[in-house]
């Protein structure tokens, strides 16, 4: 009940509504822009830009003496741009690589910002209080006018991203090709940087310079797990950013004394973690399940092949289970024999000690084992003769029996016979291999 009342009071408070719309817009906007930064491999750039806005904010306050968000926006944008120009300049004209340049610029700009901040706090200006909220953000302090400025800027950014979508995609995927087409890629790169600076600046009040970068990059990284299309990735990232904004604001308003910015970042990170684990294709869980399936499938096929080839080599109808103990990889899969017995592929005959000792394939088992061995050997012959066989399928694409094109099968079978490598047991039901062999 207490929580319910808190939620109600939250929505009754008009300023809380402004705060939540502000953080939602911020999440939305940084989600969209973050995608491009992420794909352009500029993940760390957001962090540098965020930190480098601090001296701009301080300078804007020192010069104008006002705390209007518009002046902060200008000041922060200017030093943000200066930082990005510095990075570009260092990487292009010196031997220093980008990672070092990022580290240098971040610490220098942030250091200057802290110096200026301390300077302001020690000055006699009575208006100085509250500037330090830009360090970690304080979204509760946002008022209508802040959110209006934020919202306007965010909408402009989103429209620009929509307009330049094609060009930004080109920039992120293959900038050199884009340049050869005549698009000014350096200009576009700078434009993207500018967008990022502006997105960072509008997020400063809510998330602060230290944490703003997380809002840019986390939703994008999370969205990448869910899709293979840039269009969808941008939308998903925007939705995740907005959701994190709402969730973070809500949690921090329900639980007292938790500041909003960090909670938003934690929400975004949780979304990322969930994506990383549970995403259907790229997620860790899906990958693990796929790996397990493949392992099981391979073990199964190898087991069939091993039983078949043991019988084939000695002309026996069955094979002793003890020989499996000497097989380097199959001995781990002994329990699979029971599974196969249950499925009716084989019979395990019990020895004197009461334990299974002999493996005997059933009719169904022989059929499967024969097919398995046939395809395994066709694959080998295929790899040997790839160059001779008239085909536009290349071996790189063929790794399992399902991928052998049907029209190649007669040819491969003939080759098997020619090499004396055809499976020699259980040909009763399958087409005899000897047929159609050129003399």
């Amino acid at each position, binding site marked *: 009940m207490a929580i319910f009342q808190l939620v109600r009071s939250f929505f009754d408070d008009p300023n809380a509504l402004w705060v939540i719309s502000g953080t939602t817009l911020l999440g939305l906007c940084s989600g969209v822009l973050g995608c491009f930064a992420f794909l352009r491999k500029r993940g760390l750039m957001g962090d540098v830009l965020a930190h480098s806005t601090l001296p701009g904010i301080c300078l804007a306050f020192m010069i104008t003496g006002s705390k209007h968000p518009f002046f902060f926006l200008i000041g922060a944008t200017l030093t943000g741009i200066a930082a990005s120009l510095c990075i570009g300049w260092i990487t292009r004209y010196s031997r220093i690589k980008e990672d070092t340049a990022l580290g240098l610029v971040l610490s220098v700009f942030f250091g200057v910002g802290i110096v200026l901040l301390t300077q302001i706090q020690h000055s006699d200006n009575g208006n100085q209080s509250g500037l330090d909220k830009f360090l970690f953000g304080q979204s509760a302090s946002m008022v209508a006018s802040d959110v209006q400025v934020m919202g306007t800027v965010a909408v402009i950014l989103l429209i620009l991203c929509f307009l330049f979508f*094609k*060009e930004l995609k080109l920039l992120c995927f293959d900038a050199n*090709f*884009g340049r050869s087409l005549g698009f000014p890629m350096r200009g576009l790169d700078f434009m993207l940087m500018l967008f990022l600076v502006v997105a960072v600046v509008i997020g400063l009040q809510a998330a602060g310079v230290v944490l703003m970068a997380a809002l840019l990059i986390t939703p994008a990284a999370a969205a*990448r797990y869910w899709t293979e*299309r840039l269009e969808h990735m941008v939308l998903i990232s925007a939705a995740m950013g907005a959701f994190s904004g709402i969730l973070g604001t809500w949690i921090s308003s329900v639980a007292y004394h938790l500041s909003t910015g960090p909670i938003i970042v934690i929400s975004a990170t949780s979304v990322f973690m969930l994506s990383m684990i549970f995403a259907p294709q790229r997620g860790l869980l899906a990958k693990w399940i796929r790996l397990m399936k493949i392992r099981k499938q391979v073990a199964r096929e190898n087991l069939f092949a091993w039983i078949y080839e043991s019988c084939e080599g000695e002309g026996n109808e069955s094979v002793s289970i003890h020989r499996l103990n000497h097989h380097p990889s199959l001995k781990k899969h002994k329990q699979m024999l029971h599974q196969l017995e249950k499925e009716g592929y084989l019979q395990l005959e019990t020895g004197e000690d009461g334990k299974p000792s002999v493996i005997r394939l059933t009719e169904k088992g022989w059929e499967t084992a024969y097919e398995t061995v046939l395809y395994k050997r066709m694959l080998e012959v295929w790899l040997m003769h790839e160059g001779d066989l008239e085909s536009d*399928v290349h*071996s790189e694409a063929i790794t399992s029996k399902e991928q052998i094109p049907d029209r190649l099968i007669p040819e491969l079978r003939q080759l098997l016979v020619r090499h004396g490598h055809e499976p020699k047991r259980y040909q009763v039901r399958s087409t005899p291999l000897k047929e159609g062999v050129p003399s």
Partner: protein
Amino acid sequence: MNPPVSVRNLSVAYHRKPVLREIDYDAPEGELIGIIGPNGAGKSTLIKAILGLLPLASGEVRIYGKPYAQQRQRIGYVPQRESVDWDFPTDALDVVMMGRYGKLGWFRRPKAEDRQIAMECLRKVGMEAFANRQISQLSGGQQQRVFLARALAQDAQIYFMDEPFAGVDAATEKAIIGVLNELKQQKKTVLVVHHDLQTVSEYFDSVLLLNMRVIAAGPTKEVFNAENLQKTYGGRLTILPGNSGLMVAR
């Protein structure tokens, strides 16, 4: 009649170290041209310099007698496959569609017609079945063919290809040769950076032998001989005796 590509006194330097020196070259119209040379000879650099992707230390480039910037629409480019990150959220068709962006210009989105053209280009390289495949799911050769299709979608007059044959499978090699021959029949000029000396005579009408400077240029029959290759590769080439003319670069 202006040559399709004309390079005058072109030099390129990385960090003061010259990579290309005083290149003078006129590409013959409507031919398949191989750019041949050892590693570090500046083959890719030459292409990039012509395309304006690198700053020139000196010299100038003319495309049909005009500066490159005015002739972009007539040029197609196949970069090295490794130059991009293939784990990008997009599919093969979408990459080929990028070849249309130059004609589309700013802000305009690809239309149904561009889609059709892109699809047709994928078909030409035997990749229509993979149109909707995410690009990191393609094999190296298939990725190379996607790049080739993208260049075809540019519908250009002159093509620059940076090592299209590098590390590809037999099927891709065949597809690329098919495309090259088709381009030649359409009287297009194609410059190809090429590594495999064995296939030079078979693929190319003329060659440009390069090792920081132009060693020799002209019809393959006249220029592509042991003497010029020795000059190009210096001591790094062993020419095995015999009719096969087998050459091993090391």
